């Protein structure tokens, strides 16, 4: 669990046209696939989209068919039961439409995350938020929060393991309250420490920037979390 951060991010190095395609195009195509399946629930569209997404993974990302099937393994129990249920109650064609649609959506989403480095994904999302700045959104703060979140997960997972071991040593591993209370209190304390560290570095605070002419200079400093916050995190690369 300590090395947990290394498993975050689904990117895998590889070669293929899908790797070279810019993220916006990939994301839009993938969303379009998912939208098509959900909007037109017919066997034909499901089959076509399923073929397109599987083809994209096989050809575009150069994966083996076995690898694509393995990708669906975590969802297999749910999908299997759902297919059985739909098949028995509403016919097998209907089962194919529902389950095939879900599989197509999973594959379409995975095709993007598999072929895009995690950091590029994060940057892409921050870019996506930017048009909403006029509505009061703060892409930099969003990026900062996202990168704090990512680097907190390994810490919390490690804390959880420690706390559980401590509880086991006292013979209390059966009590979820004993197992989780120090985790939550520790999380809050960690957040306070992180907040103080950020404030000490002048990150994430935009308020009162109209007081002085240095507000714009601070604005420059504020870009850094967005641009480099997650990137310096070696576990995500």
């Amino acid at each position: 669990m300590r090395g947990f951060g290394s498993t975050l991010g689904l990117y895998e190095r590889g070669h293929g046209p899908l790797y070279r395609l810019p993220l916006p195009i990939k994301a839009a195509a993938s969303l379009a696939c998912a939208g098509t399946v959900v909007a037109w629930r017919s066997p034909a569209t499901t089959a076509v989209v399923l073929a397109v997404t599987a083809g994209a993974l096989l050809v575009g990302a150069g994966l083996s068919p076995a690898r694509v099937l393995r990708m669906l393994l975590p969802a297999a129990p749910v999908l299997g039961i759902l297919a059985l249920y739909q098949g028995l109650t509403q016919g097998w064609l209907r089962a194919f439409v529902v389950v095939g649609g879900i599989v197509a959506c999973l594959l379409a989403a995975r095709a993007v995350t598999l072929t895009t480095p995690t950091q590029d994904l994060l940057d892409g999302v921050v870019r996506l938020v930017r048009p909403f700045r006029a509505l009061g959104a703060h892409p930099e703060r969003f990026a900062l929060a996202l990168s704090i979140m990512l680097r907190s997960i390994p810490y919390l997972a490690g804390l959880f393991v420690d706390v559980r071991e401590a509880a086991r040593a006292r013979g209390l591993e059966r009590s979820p309250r004993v197992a989780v209370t120090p985790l939550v209190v520790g999380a809050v304390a960690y957040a306070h420490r992180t907040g103080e560290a950020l404030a000490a570095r002048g990150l994430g605070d935009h308020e009162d920037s109209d007081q002085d002419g240095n507000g714009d200079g601070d604005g420059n400093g504020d870009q850094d979390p967005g641009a480099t916050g997650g990137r310096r995190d070696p576990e995500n690369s």
Partner: protein
Amino acid sequence: MQPAEKTVTEPAGRSRRSSRKRWDTTDLSLVAVFAALIAALAILPGIPVGPLGVPITLQTLGVMLAGVVLGPGRGAAAVLLYLAAGLIGLPVFSGFNGGFGVLAGPSAGYLLAFPLAALVAGLLAVVVLRRARRFRAGLLFLACLAASLLTIHPLGVAGLMVNAGLPLRDAIIIDAAYLPGDVVKNILAALLAVSVHRAFPRLLSTGRRAPRD
């Protein structure tokens, strides 16, 4: 690697017209760390329940905790951050899932209900903490229970109907399988929230926010 200038901003164009109270860095990191906490709790192996095998996880515990510990605004923001991270493809949903493909899955309704649940639980928790001096754990439990009955279960049922194509009756029956676990998790969330608020009394300001040093 992308060029670094893509996050170039125009600080002059930053609008300051939002009149709502700005969060300071501690609020920001509380939001981020609670999003991470939900992710950490969700990733721990869940127990598949019911015929559709939507797993019972501690995910909802994290969602409720975010609401009752951080309050409605920051709580909902933490859950939204968690959802955003999951939808863009980080494997933070239960069972190492990730990506917007989950929106087509049978548990999509539950996921979309989470921010609302944190919001409702947070609103009720603020009332409880402001008014009640005794029986706080019990009242917080009721707040969590109300939030999950008002948001998570109706939207979860709707998700089962839309994505899994189930009739209403079956969807409700499947959803009911999660109620006992939910009650247990809500009790746990209330007990934890009482402990956390005892350890950090200023975390959720009741009335005026205490001045920060």
